[in-house]
């Protein structure tokens, strides 16, 4: 038997003449966790799609346990014992866990088309136990939290008893606690002798979990070594091809003390309770909390998307009653939403339409409200330049033609065109690579220097500590703590966020 359970030799692939992968070689040993890191567009997905039978390489060969392996369709990979756990959840929310696991391979009473649940329930129970999810197989997926759904996704993959598991960014929708649980499951799978390929942008996780780390850049492996020899610094420089000395830009903003936004005793039963906070001109205020702590919900309330029962929202000292998104925009607020695919962008619309979406009323000054297209074009083109958005011509190409990092810049740019005085950004760097993150941080820093108030919501504590003047910690719909930049301390922030939540989940 070969040393490697999976081996790739000289894999190359190009799309329309542009090389996506060039001479990729690596091997995966049994019981080993191999992390694959690289910026967006480095070729990670292409590579994994070849392994899982979605795409076919132009040249090169794959071997499973020393035998040649050439999948032509996804089910070939499943049959060969390779399971792929995708970043986005592929579950039917209206069906039960059991239905989801067996949707295309139900066991039936012999000779009839009638489903035999009893023949499958035991297996589903077994795989649910393997991922520590204590719900019956008949549970409808709709009733589960995003974290639990991720576990169902893994259970589904385990049901075919794979030898190799590929995880693509599995932690993006998980809370810290759920992430820890996932890592424990991954450890256990390794002990059982399963081999794992783990793809992630979160380098600390990669360092914690891996045995071996491979770095891809522009379709080539630029670094491949044992975990022990890697530092985060080395991962980053291999990923971007140059030394990065700092992850966050130097702060150049100066909070003025003049309040842009003030919240007084904002409450909504079941969501948030007596929230008091403010954001000053030129200040970057971070808000940290676990998923479900109420941080995004609070932002939605302030922006007028969701109702609140009591409390005051003041902008520049003036109370705004019955706030709606229209009033929020009139009062120079902007809200960059968490989920750019679903809420922030119209993927099929052109980049220009997306950029001009919110500011277009200002371009229609005549009586008939006819939009001045030249002016729209000029201002959107200007924004592309300001934010250094890398994209094809903006009038003709849809938003989906850009990479994740550039999509995020378009969402921010769309709001900047309204010249806001308060910018609320929810998870501004989720799912984008290190280089693009740095640019987003620079934009935030720049805006604050220009005197805008910025409220950043994030579940990445380190990023908040890197860019904020002040951090507010939320938990269970309440403010649990507030720290100034000089008091920033990872441990006390985490403690505040987890406080009491521990009891809730235990």
């Amino acid at each position, binding site marked *: 038997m070969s040393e490697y359970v999976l081996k790739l030799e000289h894999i190359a692939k190009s799309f329309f003449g542009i090389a996506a992968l060039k001479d990729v070689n690596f091997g995966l040993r049994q019981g080993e966790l191999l992390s694959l890191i690289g910026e967006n567009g480095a070729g990670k997905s292409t590579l994994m799609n070849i392994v899982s039978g979605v795409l076919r390489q132009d040249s090169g060969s794959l071997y499973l346990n020393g035998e040649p392996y050439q999948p032509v369709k*996804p*089910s070939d990979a499943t049959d060969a014992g390779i399971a792929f756990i995708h970043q986005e959840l*592929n*579950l*039917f*929310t*209206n*069906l039960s866990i059991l*239905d989801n696991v067996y*949707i*295309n391979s*139900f066991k*039936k009473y012999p000779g009839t*088309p*009638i*489903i035999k649940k009893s023949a499958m329930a035991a297996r589903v129970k077994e795989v649910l136990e393997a991922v520590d999810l204590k719900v019956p197989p008949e549970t409808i997926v*709709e*009733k589960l939290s995003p974290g639990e759904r991720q576990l169902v996704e893994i259970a589904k993959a385990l049901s075919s008893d794979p030898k190799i598991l590929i995880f693509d960014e599995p932690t993006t929708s998980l809370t810290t606690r759920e992430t820890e649980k996932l890592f424990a499951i991954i450890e256990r799978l390794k002990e059982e002798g399963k081999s794992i390929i783990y793809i992630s942008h979160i380098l600390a996780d990669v360092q914690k979990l891996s045995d071996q780390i491979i770095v891809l850049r522009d379709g080539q492996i630029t670094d491949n070594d044992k975990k022990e020899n890697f530092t985060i610094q080395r991962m980053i420089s291999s990923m971007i091809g140059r030394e990065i000395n700092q992850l966050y830009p130097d702060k150049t903003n100066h909070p003025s003390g003049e309040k842009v936004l003030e919240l007084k005793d904002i409450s909504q*039963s*079941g*969501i*948030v*309770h007596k929230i008091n906070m403010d954001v000053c001109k030129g200040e970057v205020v971070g808000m940290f909390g676990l998923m*479900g*702590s*109420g941080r995004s*919900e609070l932002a939605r309330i302030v922006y007028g998307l*969701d109702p609140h029962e009591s409390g005051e929202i003041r902008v520049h000292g003036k109370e705004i009653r019955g706030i709606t998104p229209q009033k929020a925009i009139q009062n120079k607020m902007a809200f960059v939403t968490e989920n750019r695919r679903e809420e922030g962008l119209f993927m099929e619309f052109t980049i220009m339409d997306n950029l001009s979406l919110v500011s277009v009323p200002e371009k229609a000054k005549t009586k008939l409200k006819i939009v001045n297209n030249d002016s729209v074009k000029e201002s959107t083109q200007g924004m592309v330049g300001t934010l250094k958005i890398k994209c094809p011509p903006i009038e003709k190409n849809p938003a989906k033609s850009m990479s994740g990092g550039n999509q995020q810049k378009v969402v921010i740019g769309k709001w900047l065109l309204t010249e806001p005085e308060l910018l609320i950004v929810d998870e501004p760097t989720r799912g984008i690579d290190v280089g693009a993150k740095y640019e987003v941080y620079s934009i935030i820093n720049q805006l604050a220097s220009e005197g805008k108030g910025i409220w950043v919501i994030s579940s990445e504590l380190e990023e908040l500590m890197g860019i904020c003047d002040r951090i507010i910690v939320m938990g*269970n*719909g*309440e403010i649990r703590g507030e720290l100034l930049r000089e008091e920033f301390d990872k441990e006390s922030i985490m403690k505040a966020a987890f406080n*009491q939540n521990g*009891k*809730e989940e235990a």
Partner: protein
Amino acid sequence: MRSKEDISKLLLKNIPILLFVLVFVIFGIFSPKFLSMASFSNIILNSSYVGIIGIGIMFVLLTAGIDLSVGSVMYLASASTGLLIANYHVPTVVGVLGGIAVALLVGLINAFCIIKLEILPFVTTLGTMTAGRAVGTWMTHSESVNLPKTITSLGSQKVLGIPMAIVLFLLIAVIAAVFLSKTQLGRQIYAVGNDPEEARKAGINNKKILFTIYMLCALLAGIGGIISVAQIGIVNAAFGKGEEFNAIAAAVLGGTSLAGGSGKVSGTVLGAVMIQMIQSGLVYMQVDMYIQPLISAGIIFIAVFLDSIRARYMAKAEARNIRNENLANG
């Protein structure tokens, strides 16, 4: 301990049953005759064909599609059966099978346009609705077709004292329920309705699913049409007109979502009976004949409106309650 919210959630989940009871009680109060056993078995008898067609429509709604052609299919199928028997003197069984074959042909055209030509279901079935009726009136020269005794006697037959139409209705409902909940194809219909793209990724043959549901819908519309004429004995040019509204309303009143992915056979059965109850109730109350359709349309409208409120409220109640009040006080 059950909180107030749990109770309102429970009530909202069971709106079809609540509505059913409400309609029943209101008509019962206004017209005591309405409550008699005879009137009730009559209501079920009259709702049987709408129920059968409603079940067919529900299959289509489960995939977020629509079929407006069912009324015309009813007409075409029963007129063909009548013509085959009256003019060509074929045996009754052959006549009925011929009618059903015509219904399936319309289903095939619908499926072809929707799956192969990728025309929207709304436009496709709006077209076959108009074309179907045109073909029917051309075949019959707009004249009424009388059905022979062999068919009408079937309509008045009873099994164990239960009218044939009701027996068929229940049989079809049970088969449909088993099909949806106990077969792979049935479960996959829900999956496609939930997310067609994910269904494709999961290896489901979406085209096969769509083909199945449009064929089943046409089949059930044909059967429903023949069952209906077996009771009245005559097919006139307006037969089946507007039944698509009743059938869609039956499915939606029974909790089927127009957005796809949710709906139950039992709900649709309840919805069909409810519609008939409203219509008969208005007759019992001797409401002006011209106003009756207005009132029944109004009631159906309110019911569907309640359903959309329910969906919105449910989504809020289930997803957005993130704060644990007990924890905060403890």
